[in-house]
């Protein structure tokens, strides 16, 4: 390997490292936004949440009903049982702009909502 090729590789390596370091700083210092959702009488409150595009968001879902519910969304690729009178955490995103419906699989008739990404 000649000197020039080594130079190119090491400068690429350096920029890759810088990029990784940048990403790392981002994940350490940028706080993940938290959105609270409640389940009451088999309904989501709020049933529509708006989140920014290309951002990871932490959903904290508080089930105020005594019965368990399952948060499910085909569009978000998420599925999680939430015990009665307990809370659960679900991470979603980064997502592109659009609408992502979700529902409570145990009570799908009433428990419906959507995530709006702007």
């Amino acid at each position, binding site marked *: 390997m000649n000197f020039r090729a080594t130079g190119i590789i090491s400068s690429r390596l350096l920029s890759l490292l810088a990029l990784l370091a940048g990403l790392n700083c981002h994940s350490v210092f940028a706080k993940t936004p938290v959105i609270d959702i409640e389940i009451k009488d088999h309904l989501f409150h709020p049933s529509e949440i708006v989140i920014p595009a290309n951002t*990871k968001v932490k959903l904290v879902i508080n089930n105020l009903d*005594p019965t368990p519910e399952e948060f499910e969304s085909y*569009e978000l690729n998420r599925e999680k*049982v939430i*015990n009665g009178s307990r*809370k659960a955490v679900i*991470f979603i995103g980064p997502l592109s702009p659009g609408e992502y419906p979700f529902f409570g699989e145990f009570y*799908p008739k009433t428990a419906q909502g959507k995530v709006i990404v702007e």
Partner: protein
Amino acid sequence: MLLGSVILVLQETLEAALLVSVLMMISYQLWNRVAWLLIGIGGGLVLSYLYSSNMVEVSEWFDYVGQEIVNAGLQVLTAFFIVVCTWAAYKSQRRGSVARQTQTSPFASLFVFCAAAAVALAITREGSEILLYLGGFLQQQEYFRTIMVGSSIGFSIGLSIGILLYYGLSNLPVKWRLDAAVILMALFAGNMLAQSVLQLTQADWIPSSRSFWDTSHWLPEGSILGQLLYALVGYEATPSAAQLVAYTTGVLLVLAFRAAGKHPKR
């Protein structure tokens, strides 16, 4: 309410039913053994009861993502046992051509142990969800009867599809039977690993990546065909790159261990 319970229980039953029918076909065809199934199913029922009754505590582990971590662990273990099953099945087939295969060959024992474990773990995950679902309705007597009827219908449909698959595989020409079963096992193992990646992404243990493709317009995951394909081969309308890598890994592992079992080192 009725339809909802049919669909929910069908979804959960289908996956375990498919696994049971494929493994049972192999163990019956090769060694005339099916008793392991009772241990697998019985063990799965006990474990799913334990899992569901401790779900409150488990959910709070690891800062409220315990459920995802445990599910991912169960899925990875299921895939592991399927890989070992494949290896044992081919290994014993090779031997069987030389000396007559006996019911108590070490490979037969290894196969039935791993098959029972895979079935038990699959039932643990799916069964605990059904138990939590039904448990919620115990407190609401007005719906309980409807839910039980719906759940029984869903369970029966899932079971019937499993039985159909079993007889379908059993009636294939002998030389294709094991290979056909192993293709299904490879897809199943891929599905398990892809699902475990999804669980870890949901828990934020694996960074989320953009979906690799989007087929939700022409084959939505929520449609009947989408759901069937999800249970059969792990269909996702919007999979991430990490899920695809995990899926491919599962498929290749099963195929590699098939090859390893088939061509032993001299």
